[in-house]
């Protein structure tokens, strides 16, 4: 089947079976490898993209269900204000270890800040609970979201950097 997809503001045409998840359209048909494969079952969040602004697991999203929705991926997120602030915060405290899950983390965090500009700790934990970081960078993920949101920046840095 032929599909016209609106990805990062550009119309892309692909010819794939209707059930192919968006993840594999992005990675193997369009060569957009920023969105990551982690589990294939919607359990880890590595493949998170935005569909009309909402965080969705692209491994669970058949291409036929996407329609004319606006899809945004990690390759584009820096062009949004929230995305740029998150990327900057991520680098300010160097959140990552291996870094593999971080595209999905940033996409989830960006959807969170879009819906809730000043999230508290519980809101952060609940919005980010679907994104696994196997390296365990969770303290810094919390901190970076607080820094990007402009919430208690000193406290956020303290939390991730408290060292006697």
């Amino acid at each position, binding site marked *: 089947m032929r599909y016209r997809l609106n990805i990062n503001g550009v119309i892309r045409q692909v010819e*794939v*079976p209707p059930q*192919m998840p968006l993840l*594999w359209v992005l*990675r*193997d*048909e369009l*060569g957009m*490898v*920023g*969105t*990551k*494969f*982690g*589990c*294939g*079952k919607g*359990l*880890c969040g*590595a493949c998170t993209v935005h569909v009309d602004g909402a965080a969705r697991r692209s491994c669970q999203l058949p291409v036929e269900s996407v329609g004319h929705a606006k899809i945004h991926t*990690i*390759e584009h*997120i*820096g062009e949004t204000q929230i995305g740029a602030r*998150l*990327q900057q915060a*991520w*680098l300010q*405290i*160097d959140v*990552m*270890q*291996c*870094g*593999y*899950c*971080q*595209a999905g983390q940033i996409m989830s965090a960006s959807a969170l800040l879009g819906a809730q500009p000043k999230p508290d700790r519980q809101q*952060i*934990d*609940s919005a*980010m*609970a679907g*994104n*696994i*970081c*196997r*390296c*365990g*960078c*969770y*303290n810094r*993920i*919390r901190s970076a979201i607080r820094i990007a949101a402009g919430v208690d920046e000193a406290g956020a840095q303290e*939390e*991730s*950097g*408290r*060292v*006697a």
Partner: protein
Amino acid sequence: MLHKSPRVSLDRRTVLKASLLAGGGLALEALIPLPVRALDGAAGEPAAPGVLSAFVSIAPDGTVRIVAKNPEIGQGVKTSLPMMVADELDCEWSQVRIEQADVDQKRYGSQVAGGSTATPTNWLPMRQTGAAARAMLLEAAAARWGVSSGELTTSKGRILHAASGRSAGYGEVASAAARLSPPDLKSVRLKEPAQFTIIGKPTVGVDSARIVEGKPVFGIDTRLPGMLYAVYEVAPAHGGRLIKADVEAVKRLPGIRHVLPIHGDGDPDQGLADGVAIVASNWWLANQARSRLVVEWDLSAAKGHSTSVYQAKADEAIVADSGADLRRDGDAAAKLAAAAKRVSARYDYPFIAHAPMEPQNCTACYREGRLEVWAPSQNPNAGLASLEKALGIARERVTLHLTRAGGGFGRRLLNDYMVQVAAIAKAIPGVPIQLLWSREDDIRRDYYRPGGWHSFQAGLDQQGNLVAFTDHFVTFGDGKTTARAANFNLSLPPAGLVEDLHFTQTMLPTVVTTGWLRAPASNALSFVSQSFLDEVAVAAGKDLPTLMLSLLGARREVAAPDDRPPFDTGRARDVIEKVVQTSSWARKPAQSGRAKGFAFYFSHRGYFAEVVEASVSGSDVAVHRVWVAADVGSQIVNPMGAENQVRGAVIDGLAQALAGQAIEFADGAVQQSNFHDFPLARIPMTPEIEIAWVKSDKPPTGLGEPALPPVIPALTNAIFAATGTRIRSLPVRLKSA
């Protein structure tokens, strides 16, 4: 197995070669032989390299290029090792560009991410190389200005002559420096720690900026013209062999290009497992097609390899008390018989998987008898050996590019995926193939941390002193050698600290592939031994820090009976006393329902004492805070990465205990498959983690692993303190109250 003794393939002399960089500038290459056993890695861990090399170049525009030779798996070496070079070179970090090296044993010696070895092996050589380059730049400037090099100083990549006010950037004299003979590496002057400008400063990882933008850096991101995507269907049970496959139906499915039954070499451990490759234009199409494969497997070898059978055999062995001697000091049996009080308990832990976030993958192209490979591997040279053994492709005919790996944790020390993709690529010459495993493949075909069982006995005298200690360890192996990472630690405390001690071992055979998982052996031995010693402390009317301090005694080095490094009781004492202080251990818990647990462990040259504060509600355990006191030597190279390694290891250990991680077998078939039944840590369970570095005068050592082992017993000891329930089996499964 990895080679236990260092391999020395080069001349034993240090070689420092200077040359003119293409386009002008200085290129400096150092080849530094390591003394044999410079790094006496613990048994079963990746061995020390025989040669270290460092490459640094300075271009006329002042750009400093440093080659990162080791695999980057998230442990931060691609940043921290070049920091050592750059600091002694005395340039600005912003001048530095890092280049990932390909795999080349002749040039780089060992290129391994394992055993927390990179920091201790590279600490001096990297700095010496940077200092040698600086010395040559100084000489070149001195010659140009007609002054003595002793009158010159450097700062931020510039050479200064204070007397005349002249200065020059490194790039301006780099070509002239390339014509000088390099200094003797051992005589170059190194900075005092107070002079460091880069080492010790929190430094952002060199790939981080690309990662937050979603740029390709990982193995799975490799894209080549004309590339096809592959899956590799292996037997549904460990030890299974391929009889025959009906592939015709699959060949007709959309996007499918090749379906190849592959008979391996019968060695799924280090060679090529039997399987059926499906190659398609899109990975999802290849993976979907698997359900249409009709394959006949011989699963006879897997029969009886079930978790329940292993458990029953371990029970029998423990009741029979029939272990072979591992270590016998004094007469523990007699001391136990005469003890005023005896404590005994049995402990066990399950097989667990590594589950790095980037599923196993590898890309290869076979063309005109040569193989080119792009691999996220922790031990690529072992992969080259496997290619030769299983496929007859000599290492001289392989070009191997290292990619960043999305996590390793020891999984990628084995290279099964590399051999598989090479077998597929060899069958389809000229076409680049990317093999990618599904998460189910990854969970079911791991080299697991093996399960194990321990039966402990301890004897106390009238004063509550520990006077006798025994452990019968039931593990996996062929009767002669333990399976990979199924080994004991002959120095396991209280060994060496009590006079009468007896360790014995029984091996059970297994068809399951086992391997090193972050802090191999230690990740399990810490749990059983520090939990049991907590029981001993309770029986003696003490707490565990007090018992440990009394066992440690005077500050001294206790030699290991094998090739492990000696154990420094003073460094152990210092971290224990530190965490007792930072966690306010002695004080009653501030909030009701919360309780603290303590544990200490020494592994990978690092001394770690940790306290966990937890509360229990029904069957739920909440971890609120963790305090870590660590001695990894005199200097933290990159605090940014170091703190992340410690926090990550703590969270990893908590997940092993609390998330429900256990791999189970039924006739060799793994019962778990993905993150719903092999869960990892998630953000809500993350505690605050406070780190205290205890600086000793010893050279810095690695941080990838040693923070993990103590957190598990610190947690289980906290659960005991909160509830009175002793956790003797992992993962933690409390009954609802």
